[in-house]
């Protein structure tokens, strides 16, 4: 707990209202809260804390890899670093931050006062949070108490049988398994809450066909969580049984199968990527139209494409396993399924382009990050197509090309969109604008750093450099590329620190935002910034997809065009 309070404090809305209150009372408020906004902020603060931690781990790795045969860290430490970096970024940064925004925004956007299950919401947050703390306790705890364990070192996908007692004695792998079990529970709980909220808590008139796209995409994401995160939980239970009770699920010496773990993990692992990227799409769907001053192009197609991505992504997991020797039949199937994802994804990109087309684009920092997202997501999608071509993948998989590819998705697309979302919704959350000047510095520094790092990271992969090696041979010609890659990390670090500083500075000194600083169209901008505990004094009622457009343009409201003949007849929950 102590770890995230300083960060959430930054965003603490209550402080301003009652500066006299003692910090213990404030703490009590936050610990016992069931308010979706506070829980959302706690999620975000917690994720930001771990973003910095995992970013620091990445920095250490880049120092180690900058030159060949480096001795900056030992192999054992390096292996722990990449395991913790991957695990943290996926489970304790990506998921919580997206759920944080979801928690904060969904009830506001659908005109509700809270989530469907406020207490479950608090529970889900806390159990995810404790999961993260348990994982990091491994750094101190293991060796201190039993002299055997320490941080996990099996890689974030922990392939069997490296996780078996024989190859991983002590408790390090247990920390990994147990903490992921805990966050798994929290993730499923929050997703359940989001689905129930989006379906059951909509304000009058908010039909499914009028649901903001952000809410739609969170709905799809959450539904995917049930079928993706649960298999991971199941696999973790099996691994736990193997390690604690001596069962043989992944024990290759007793006839068990290492490949089964790979299947189970990637049945989770691939949809997970879409679970992370769909909320980024969700932000883009809200932010790009507002700054282009146009309605989103092809709302139904966007919904359909998201649902389509959701479904197809459940049948592509084995494209992580083209080199496993599944045979030509299975390989061919997964090639086709994987390529098929590119079609709905393409629709999304083109629809965003069409939204921009003919608009009047305002380049706020938020929009700049969104444009960066579009550009980088395009590249990430194209390298994704390269990886879907199984024979090409035989060369590329497990190499630095793959590392570059998925960092393009996770940093170039998701993190850029997250920054965009911060600049867009920070005024709503805090009541103050983030500084645009600092924001521009942040954007350009991060952009330069990002491209230095991840553009050039593709090359060593093409030159045969495998991932997860703590050092490499000098004669392979990888050094120059690794130097460039590592140098980009410096820019990214500075940019991120600037961003954190901007958040703190703007909280106290930023320009007062007002209810609707961006001239936007969704319901969250119709209430005060920050919103009152109850969100809306009176539950709103809507008649179109853009209720605030209707209010701002009474002479030409959307609702005149989006007519329906019978109320509620269109429902497809």
């Amino acid at each position, binding site marked *: 707990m102590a770890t995230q309070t300083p960060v959430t404090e930054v965003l603490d809305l209550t402080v301003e209202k009652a500066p006299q209150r003692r910090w213990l009372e404030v703490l009590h408020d936050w610990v016992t809260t069931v308010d979706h906004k506070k829980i959302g902020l706690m999620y975000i603060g917690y994720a930001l804390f771990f973003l910095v931690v995992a970013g620091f781990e990445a920095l250490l790795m880049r120092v180690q890899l900058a030159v060949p045969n480096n001795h900056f860290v030992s*192999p*054992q430490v390096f292996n722990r670093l990449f395991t913790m970096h991957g695990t943290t970024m996926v489970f304790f940064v990506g998921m919580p931050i997206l759920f944080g925004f979801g928690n904060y925004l969904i009830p506001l956007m659908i005109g509700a006062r809270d989530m469907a299950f406020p207490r479950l919401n608090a529970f889900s947050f806390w159990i995810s949070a404790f999961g993260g703390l348990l994982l990091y306790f491994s750094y101190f705890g293991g060796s201190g108490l039993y002299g055997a364990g320490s941080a996990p070192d*099996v890689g974030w996908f922990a*392939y069997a*049988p*490296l996780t078996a007692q024989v*190859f991983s004695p002590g408790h390090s792998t247990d920390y990994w398994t147990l903490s992921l079990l805990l966050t798994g529970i929290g993730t499923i709980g929050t997703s359940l809450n989001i689905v129930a909220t989006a379906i059951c808590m909509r304000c009058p008139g908010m039909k499914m066909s009028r649901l903001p796209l952000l809410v739609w995409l969170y709905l799809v994401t959450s539904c995917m969580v049930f079928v993706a995160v649960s298999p991971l939980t199941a696999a973790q239970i099996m691994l736990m049984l193997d390690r604690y009770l001596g069962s043989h699920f992944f024990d290759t*010496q007793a006839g068990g199968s*290492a490949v089964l773990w790979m299947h189970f993990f990637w049945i989770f692992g691939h949809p997970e990527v879409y679970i992370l990227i769909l909320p980024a799409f969700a932000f883009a769907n809200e932010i790009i139209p507002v700054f282009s*001053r*146009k309605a989103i192009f*092809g*709302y139904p*197609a966007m919904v359909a494409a998201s649902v389509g991505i959701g479904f197809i992504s459940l049948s592509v997991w084995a494209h992580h396993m083209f*080199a*496993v*020797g599944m045979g*030509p039949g299975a*390989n061919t199937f997964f*090639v086709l399924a994987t*390529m*098929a994802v590119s*079609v709905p994804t*393409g*629709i999304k*990109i*083109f629809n965003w*382009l069409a939204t*921009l087309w003919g*608009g*009047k*684009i*305002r380049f706020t920092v938020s929009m700049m990050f969104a*444009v960066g997202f579009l550009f980088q997501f*395009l590249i990430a999608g*194209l390298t994704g*197509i*390269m990886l879907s*071509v*199984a*024979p090409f*993948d*035989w*060369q590329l*998989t*497990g190499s630095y090309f793959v590392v570059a590819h998925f960092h393009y998705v996770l940093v170039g697309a998701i993190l850029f969109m997250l920054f965009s979302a911060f600049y867009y919704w920070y005024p709503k959350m805090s009541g103050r604008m983030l500084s645009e000047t600092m924001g521009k510095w942040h954007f350009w520094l991060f952009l330069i750093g990002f491209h230095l790092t991840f553009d050039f990271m593709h090359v060593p992969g*093409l*030159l*045969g450099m*495998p*991932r*997860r*090696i*703590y*050092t490499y*041979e000098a004669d*392979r*010609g990888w050094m120059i590329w690794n130097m460039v890659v590592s140098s980009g990390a410096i820019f990214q670090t500075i940019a991120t620190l600037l961003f954190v500083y901007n958040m703190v500075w703007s909280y106290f000194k930023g320009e007062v935002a007002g209810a609707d600083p961006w001239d936007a169209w969704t319901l969250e901008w119709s209430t005060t910034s920050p919103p009152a505990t109850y969100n809306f004094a009176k539950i709103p009622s809507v008649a179109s997809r853009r209720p605030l457009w209707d209010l701002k*343009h009474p002479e030409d409201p959307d609702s005149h*065009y989006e007519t329906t003949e019978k109320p509620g007849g269109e429902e497809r929950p």
Partner: protein
Amino acid sequence: MFACHGLYDLAVIVSTAFGDNPTNIFAPVGTPAHSVFGLSMLVLWITGAIFVLVAGILLYVLVRYRSRAADGVTEQEPPQIYGSNQIELAWTVIPILIVVMLFLATARVIYTTEHAPKPADALDVTVIGHQFWWEYSYPALGVVTANELHVPVSDPKHMLPTYLTMSSADTDHSFWVPRLAGKTDVIPNRVNTMWIDPQETGLYLGQCAQYCGVQHAKMLIRVYVDTPAAFDAWVAHQRQPAVEDSRVAEGRAVFEHNACISCHTIRGTVATGRFGPDLTHVASRDTIASGAVPNTAANIRSFVDNPENFKPGALMPPMHLDSHDLDAVTAYLTTLK
């Protein structure tokens, strides 16, 4: 026509851009690597074209439709276009067409690589991945060696492919020599196969590409592609028992009286362990410690003294020999040509 040249030019540019690199996937020398290379050029060309097109549109839109008003004042909202079934249908159908074409090409390469008929005279090699070294055995030739794979060169007119039958003794590994073929995972309790047919003699480098434990980074692969004559000579040499040299009898005694024998094999001695590399002809190899360092007496001595010197995390324990015994063992091992 220009497009065809485009594909060819792209291949030339790509394969020369990275210069003289020993593990460049764009410098293929065998059939599997070549067919991957050809396919990858098609993919690069298609994705490159899409990139230029879409990024161009994005750039155009950003410039053309940027708001010209100062910070959102006095401007009229643009027309609100809700969508277009036609355009959306078009950009659904075109990607589908591209996907279909790409898929057909991919499926063909998958089948021609994974389902290639095996010639009767193909060479069979069994590859066993260990933490953190490679065991190669040639069942038909009665040869067992480690870390340095020797195969005969394949003549384009008379293909002489080498079939690798792979499994693991402990954790997952992956066999990857980029210039010869894509990678194939080496998994315990499971047998995978792959084939290579290098058409130029020389030394090809690679390394384990699946994280397998602490020392994953130094689990290197060296493939020596020899002329048929050289290969036959190598085989003949490897089949002989270990060299007997009375001058190093003391070193041999030290070897035989220590734990060495429980992990290593030297044919003709009491050492029959299978846990570590076969040392019968260890001195004939160019490197030790799975390619980590050159095979010199000094390096052998250092490695026997404490393997952590080169390979932290290696499973071989420090032997705790005194200086005299170390010298003796080193002398013995260096005679095992």
